């Protein structure tokens, strides 16, 4: 089976001379949730724009389920759904009309049952006859999603889906995305909320300054870059480390009340046992201890900084 999305050497230089993408290669497999992570201006929206037909590429090729997006644009676009970052809707249309319009626009015949199902799933059913202009911001975003799903796409792009969205809607969206994946839809979401990628994605790609600097399984990524921290809450505050312990890379925080030890989960030995033994022989006693895994956010910040 060909990849749901296959990108080779994708390059985009805008008329202003700004190069948003510098030879991007990427494959996304059918049925996976892929998160494209990167700071503002990294090229995420440009990449989506090219695949969906909003931006002309300067160079490179893109295939969607094996078909070229330029040559076979009818085939590829009819199976792509896009929820853009910004909410733009026809203010004077009813929810029902605008969602049905999208279905027709993407070449599908009327199917009131499908539209009804969508509106119910997105808690929009009781607003179906309401004009878009009368809806709240969160509701408008739901309408954008309903429009993108109206033609039953197989590849869904969510560009910053939860930027400025309340907690409830965010939870609903995550729920919905998982439901879609269960029906075989491939989902590509861009975000700069690490939490979102961590929560949702199977694989994560990190893009920075127009280049994909890493693509990896979320779990593997967490493990590869995952550092753990051991924090010890001391009984008596410490102003400086005893000589023997200084070499271990310990940090004193919280005005001497805590000791922090970082270690690599991949390492052969973590050094925890030895550390604890040394502390005890130095007469440092502790009241409590905890270990913490570094989040994707820490990993991400490290990666982007390394590149800068």
């Amino acid at each position, binding site marked *: 089976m060909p990849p749901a999305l296959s990108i080779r050497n994708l390059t985009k230089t*805008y*008329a202003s001379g700004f190069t948003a993408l510098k030879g991007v290669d990427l494959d996304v497999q059918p049925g996976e949730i892929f998160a494209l992570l990167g700071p503002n201006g990294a090229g995420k929206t440009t990449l989506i*724009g090219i695949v*969906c*037909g*909003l*931006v*002309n590429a300067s160079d490179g090729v893109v295939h969607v389920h094996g078909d070229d997006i330029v040559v076979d*644009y*009818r*085939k*590829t*676009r*009819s199976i*792509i759904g*896009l929820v*853009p970052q*910004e909410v*733009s*809707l*026809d*203010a*004077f*249309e009813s929810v029902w*009309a605008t969602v049905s*319009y*999208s*279905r*027709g*626009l*993407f*070449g*599908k*015949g009327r199917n009131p049952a499908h539209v009804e199902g969508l509106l119910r799933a997105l808690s929009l059913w009781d607003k179906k006859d309401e004009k878009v202009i009368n809806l709240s911001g969160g509701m408008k975003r739901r309408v954008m999603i309903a*429009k993108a799903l109206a033609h039953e796409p197989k590849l869904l792009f969510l560009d910053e889906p939860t930027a400025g969205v309340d907690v409830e809607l965010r939870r609903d969206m995550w729920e919905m995305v998982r439901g879609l994946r269960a029906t075989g839809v491939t989902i590509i979401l861009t975000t700069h909320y690490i939490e979102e990628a961590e929560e949702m994605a199977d694989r994560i790609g990190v893009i920075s300054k127009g280049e994909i600097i890493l693509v990896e399984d979320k779990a593997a990524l967490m493990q590869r870059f995952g550092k753990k921290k051991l924090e010890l809450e001391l009984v008596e505050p410490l102003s400086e480390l005893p000589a023997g312990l200084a070499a271990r890379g310990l940090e004193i925080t919280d005005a001497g009340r805590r000791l922090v030890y970082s270690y690599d989960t991949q390492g052969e030995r973590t050094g925890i046992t030895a550390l604890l033994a040394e502390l005890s022989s130095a007469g440092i006693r502790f009241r409590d201890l905890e270990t913490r895994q570094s989040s994707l956010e820490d990993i991400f910040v490290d990666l982007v900084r390394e590149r800068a």
Partner: protein
Amino acid sequence: MNFHAVKAIYTFEMARTFRTIMQSIISPVVSTSLYFVVFGAAIGSRIETIDGVSYGAFIVPGLIMMSLLTLSISNASFGIYFPKFTGTIYEVLSAPISYFEIVLAYVGAAATKSMMIGLVILATAAFFVDLQIQHPFMMVLFLVLTSVSFSLFGFIIGIWADGFEKLQIIPLLIVMPLAFLGGTFYSLDMLPPVWQTISLANPVVYLVSGFRWSFIGTSDVSVWVSLAMTLFFLVICLGIVSWMFRTGYRLKK
């Protein structure tokens, strides 16, 4: 051919028209009636017949043409400019639809609306003057060709415009003067010879002349020249539109 998409856009655009049906129809009816009262009754009663018909009947084709031109341009330019302005154009650009289908749907809807209003004005005119239509087939042909060509022209303006002001400037500064100077209210041979020659550079002259021929059977320029000029304008507009879409001009980055 993505039939569903063309239908979706066309229906959407027509729904927009019907939402504002009162102002869409009443305002041309009122303004046409005013023209008849002022030019047809007040001034026309002092003018001899022109080309064998009363002045009131003489200006009917010109008035319809003038409305067709301005309405086609405003309908079509607004129809494509507004989605660009609000951002909803993203959906059309990402849809599995060819440029030809986009133009067909938007321009088709704009032209339909102009033709509907053209016919309403014609019906209004029938209340004021004794109408005769000698060549009904040619009348309909000119009606359709003019509505389509100028809707295309409006579509071009709508894509080109990057502000509401630009949307107004061409209709106001170019089309209106050309329409008034295009023989709507007079026959070209009423002008001094120099101005008759200059008028031949005005494309509206050919439209009005050909359209008037289909009503009263006489015209300033040959009806075939009129038809050829109308088709020529249509082809030029088609050329510009296809260039715009090929290059993504002001639509795609």
